[in-house]
């Protein structure tokens, strides 16, 4: 900076004043997309009212200033861990699921390997704070929706009873019937498929 060139100095002062003003404004808000543990990346649609942006790459981000257009940026795993490590560590543990099947033709007798699943469930429960068990029954595609909704809930209740006999408190379990909506093995309608007659136990 030179004293005998006042216009340049004024310009610099004006720039500093402008930077000061910008600093007083709130930092732009940010959205960062993360990859799932299996590497899959979904997408988010960010809308500021004035503009719109889709983010669909791992560690891609959008910045949303108080006024003006949405910007985009790219970050990486190390930066996210540095800036948001404590936040990510506060996420509840991901739900895990176990599946039990019924003996051939039976709607009440579970297959013999179900006892081993109980041991896995007990171990998982011990690892978690305030765990809940969601016990979801499924059917194959034979019969009406109403029939299968009822049957799947019955299957779920059978498993809830089975688990409570093995020392898991009924109060932390919820029985759900999902009918034929979620086949393990997709089939055409009205197909008897033993693999789809199952109960999924999700611990969250």
């Amino acid at each position, binding site marked *: 900076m030179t004293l005998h060139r006042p216009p340049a100095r004024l310009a610099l002062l004006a720039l500093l004043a402008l930077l000061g003003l910008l600093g007083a404004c709130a930092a732009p808000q940010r*959205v960062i997309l*993360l990859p799932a543990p299996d590497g899959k990346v*979904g997408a*988010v649609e960010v*809308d500021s009212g004035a503009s719109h942006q889709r983010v669909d790459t791992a560690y891609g981000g959008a910045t949303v*200033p108080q006024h003006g257009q949405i910007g985009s940026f790219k970050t990486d795993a190390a930066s996210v861990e540095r800036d*948001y490590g404590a*936040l990510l560590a506060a996420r509840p543990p991901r*739900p895990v699921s176990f599946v039990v099947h019924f003996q051939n033709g039976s709607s009440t007798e579970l297959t013999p390997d179900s006892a081993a699943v109980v041991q896995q469930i007990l171990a998982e429960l011990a690892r978690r704070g305030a765990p809940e068990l969601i016990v979801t029954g499924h059917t194959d595609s034979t019969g009406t929706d109403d029939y299968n909704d009822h049957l799947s809930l019955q299957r779920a209740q059978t498993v809830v009873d089975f688990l409570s006999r093995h020392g898991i408190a009924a109060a932390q379990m919820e029985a759900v019937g999902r009918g034929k909506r979620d086949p393990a093995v997709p089939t055409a309608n009205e197909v008897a498929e033993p693999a789809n007659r199952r109960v999924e136990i999700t611990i*969250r």
Partner: protein
Amino acid sequence: MRTVPPYRAAPLAAGALLALLCSLAAGAVDSAGMVKTLKGQVNILRAGQTLPVRVGDPVLEGDQLNTGADSSVGITLRDDTLLAAGARSTLEIRHFSFNPTTHDGRLDSNVKRGTLAVISGKIAHAHPEAVQFSTNSLTLGVRGTEFIIDAGEQP
């Protein structure tokens, strides 16, 4: 309609009372989610009252969660959406409904200040258009994914 002999009215009344009590107890099942992780100072503003938070507490539609410095809270919603609010954050569950049989439902949540980490759940999987997160500057639609919203320090 059947007429009810007087000697049968008392058990019926008792039954009605029991049904009422059961439906009140079932209200707890209709929570939006549950607190799973907790660090530092966190409270819930519910119907004008500020409540302390413990792991295992229910989170209800309409709740506003506030975290202090060096604090955080993790919540699992009933559709398996996982949420974490970081330090000095305000998170509101504006709307939550979920049918575990059909996976129909709606989630509308706002981050007034601070940070929120999200792993989307079953509503976003079945009906992405029914899930929305917002701040005072943006709304965010979710296409089955994990993300962070940093709403910054707001007044």
